[in-house]
């Protein structure tokens, strides 16, 4: 791309350069033909080429040393006047065409994409490509940035790109105004870069996401691909060619809602584990069991009906469409009006879902319904983050914000790939055990959303522990990883959730579980706990201290002090 900028510039300066050369040549030539005059008024032969060129050089560049070497004759002065005007015109023309080139939109585009490509190429640390930096993309970019993961973003809208560039990020976010659906732009964003970890296709256009997903699968099959989708048929299409994760926010929310009605504690736990870490835990709202009313039968309405139906919740749909599947109890009308709501039995219902694609209508539905039945549990769908103020003021029991849901899912997938696995397991749990775990976590993290992270016991992620396991052949218990490396008597505010070994999962592993090299572990806890644990995993001395209680010693002291006894939690194997 650099060379193309260079050649483009060269082609544009062709005419100005030729004009300059001609002007210089004509001026010099003229001066070598016109006779001069000496101090006594006698004519002298004309200047040589050397002096003529010297004179033209300093005159044309407006330095103007004067008439050197001798005072000029009148004929020479006449010619020099012509030369001065010619050269001024020539230089102005050249400078104007250069400025025009710099301001040219196409040229700037080429320049920008060249710089973007270069910066992406020089990225040394792992990064994710975020396609589409709308509300969702912004949330994800910010969250990734907080985690210390670099982001390369593609966004079609020029105004959004400029907004992004003004945002305050820890590390520079590389953003480019380009259509992510074009494979070439994806390549430019580093699709084949060795540090690229994954592609997040989260534009609000299903078709664009589909083409990003296909392009990524074809060009770099090793990458993790997460795609956002709203339409079930496109979702099936994506799954068919092996997109790793498809986030359908409508389906996801509907599923959570249905699960929450069935098993409130389960939902509480999921909410804790997938929330944005560090935020205040939201107040508990358990959706009640009973009759529900759903307003709107778009993609979201259909997903809600499908999921609630599956859990045997009886419901009535209010939608302006005349023909709905016969299995759905259906009132034709708009939920903003009281009459259809009454027909749908709002007085006896326990909850309402305001799920149209218009925020104002949704709020109107919710308020009208609440007027009629003040006991209602209200779920509203918020389409635009910009309307947050309104929804905050209304304060529904549940607010469904698509961009939040997608952002949370994506973050969970990136920062803790084991989490979806764990969430699948706890679906089978009884409500009480989920409740216990949820309250334990809340207690540990001081009523804030815990951080969830994965650890793999290998040489790169946990060098100290890996060494101890592989070289010293020691038996290390899981409890070691829960001790504070500053004071080994204290345990860190974290909980092990899942242990994966050779494809077999162990939920909630106990402290005495023996660790093996290559184990995958999932933890939840505070950010501080994670850093402390990281120290134990990385640092030989910290690990020694946690294991034995001895502080780090130099070589000399190690020789002088008596041999260490094997400490609790670790036993060295004979031989």
């Amino acid at each position: 791309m650099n060379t193309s900028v260079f050649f483009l510039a060269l082609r544009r300066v062709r005419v100005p350069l030729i004009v300059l050369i001609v002007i210089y040549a004509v001026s010099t030539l003229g001066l070598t033909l016109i006779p001069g005059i000496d101090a006594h008024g006698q004519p002298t032969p004309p200047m040589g080429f050397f002096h003529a060129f010297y004179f033209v050089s300093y005159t044309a560049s407006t330095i103007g040393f004067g008439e050197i070497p001798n005072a000029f004759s009148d004929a020479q002065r006449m010619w020099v006047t012509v030369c001065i005007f010619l050269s001024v015109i020539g230089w102005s023309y050249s400078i104007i065409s250069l400025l025009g080139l710099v301001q040219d939109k196409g040229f700037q585009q080429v320049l920008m994409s060249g710089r973007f490509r270069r910066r992406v190429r020089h990225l040394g640390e792992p990064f994710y490509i975020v396609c589409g930096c709308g509300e969702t993309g912004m949330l994800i970019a910010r969250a990734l940035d907080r985690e210390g993961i670099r982001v390369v973003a593609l966004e079609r809208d020029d105004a959004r790109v400029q907004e992004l560039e003004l945002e305050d990020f820890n590390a520079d976010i590389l953003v480019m105004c380009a259509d992510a659906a074009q494979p070439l732009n994806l390549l430019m964003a580093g699709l084949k870069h060795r540090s690229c970890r994954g592609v997040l296709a989260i534009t609000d256009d299903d078709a664009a996401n589909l083409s990003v997903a296909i392009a990524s699968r074809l060009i770099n099959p090793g990458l993790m691909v997460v795609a956002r989708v709203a339409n079930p048929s496109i979702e099936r299409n994506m799954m068919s060619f092996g997109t790793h994760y498809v986030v359908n926010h409508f389906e996801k929310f509907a599923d959570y809602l249905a699960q929450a009605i069935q098993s409130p504690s389960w939902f509480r736990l999921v909410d804790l584990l997938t929330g944005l870490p560090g935020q205040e835990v939201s107040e508990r709202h358990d959706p009640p069991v009973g009759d529900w009313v759903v307003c709107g039968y778009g993609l979201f309405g259909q997903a809600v009906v499908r999921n609630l139906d599956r859990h045997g919740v009886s419901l009535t749909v209010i939608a302006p469409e005349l023909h709905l599947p016969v299995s759905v109890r259906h009132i034709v009308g708009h939920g903003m009006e009281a009459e259809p709501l009454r027909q749908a039995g709002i007085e006896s219902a326990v909850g309402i879902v305001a799920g149209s694609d218009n925020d104002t209508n949704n709020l109107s539905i919710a308020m009208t319904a609440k007027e009629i039945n003040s006991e209602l549990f209200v779920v509203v769908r918020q389409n635009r983050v910009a309307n947050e103020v309104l929804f905050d003021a209304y304060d529904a029991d549940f607010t469904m914000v698509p961009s939040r849901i997608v952002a949370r899912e994506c973050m969970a997938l990136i920062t803790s790939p084991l989490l979806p696995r764990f969430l699948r397991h706890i679906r089978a749990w009884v409500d009480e055990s989920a409740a216990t775990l949820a309250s334990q976590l809340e207690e540990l993290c001081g009523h804030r959303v815990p951080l969830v992270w994965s650890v793999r016991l290998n040489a790169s992620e946990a060098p100290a522990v890996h060494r101890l396991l592989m070289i010293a052949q020691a038996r290390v218990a899981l409890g070691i990883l829960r001790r504070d490396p500053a004071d080994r008597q204290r345990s860190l505010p974290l909980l092990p959730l899942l242990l994966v070994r050779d494809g077999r999962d162990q939920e909630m592993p106990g402290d005495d579980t023996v660790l093996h090299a290559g184990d995958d572990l999932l933890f939840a806890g505070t950010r501080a706990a994670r850093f402390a644990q990281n120290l134990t995993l990385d640092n030989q001395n910290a690990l020694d201290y946690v294991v034995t209680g001895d502080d780090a010693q130099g070589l000399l002291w190690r020789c002088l002090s008596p041999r260490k006894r094997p400490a609790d939690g670790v036993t060295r194997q004979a031989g």
Partner: protein
Amino acid sequence: MLSSYAVANRAASSPALETVPMNLEKVVFGFFIVLAATLNFGFFIGNIDNPVHHHIYELFAAIVVNLIATVLKFGDRTQIGAVHLSTSLVADLQLVAAACVWAIAVHVTGEGMSPDVTTSVVSLSGGALFANVVSVVLLIVETVMLRR
């Protein structure tokens, strides 16, 4: 020209357009390349150490035309365009070196156009002539390729 090469090539390959239409850009391009070579040759020809045979105005004209020919070759990304540009740059370098030798001999050291100086100026321009001949050959090759 070099950009029009692709266009002309496409036209030649389509059966409906048998002849390539004359192109003013090509005329100018060819004109300057050939003129650069002829002027250079005019300066070069003659006894190598006889300043009378090598007029300095001819050297001046050769330098100016060569510079213009170089600029005309800017911005072509094809292989043949790159070679064109490099031959022109070589010719420029040689001719400017010749002019420098002349300027130093005549104006700085005051030696004047002695047979020694004349010989070195003319031989430098001879090198440039060779580069210019390569340029002309390339031009001919390109033309022949197009007409095929």
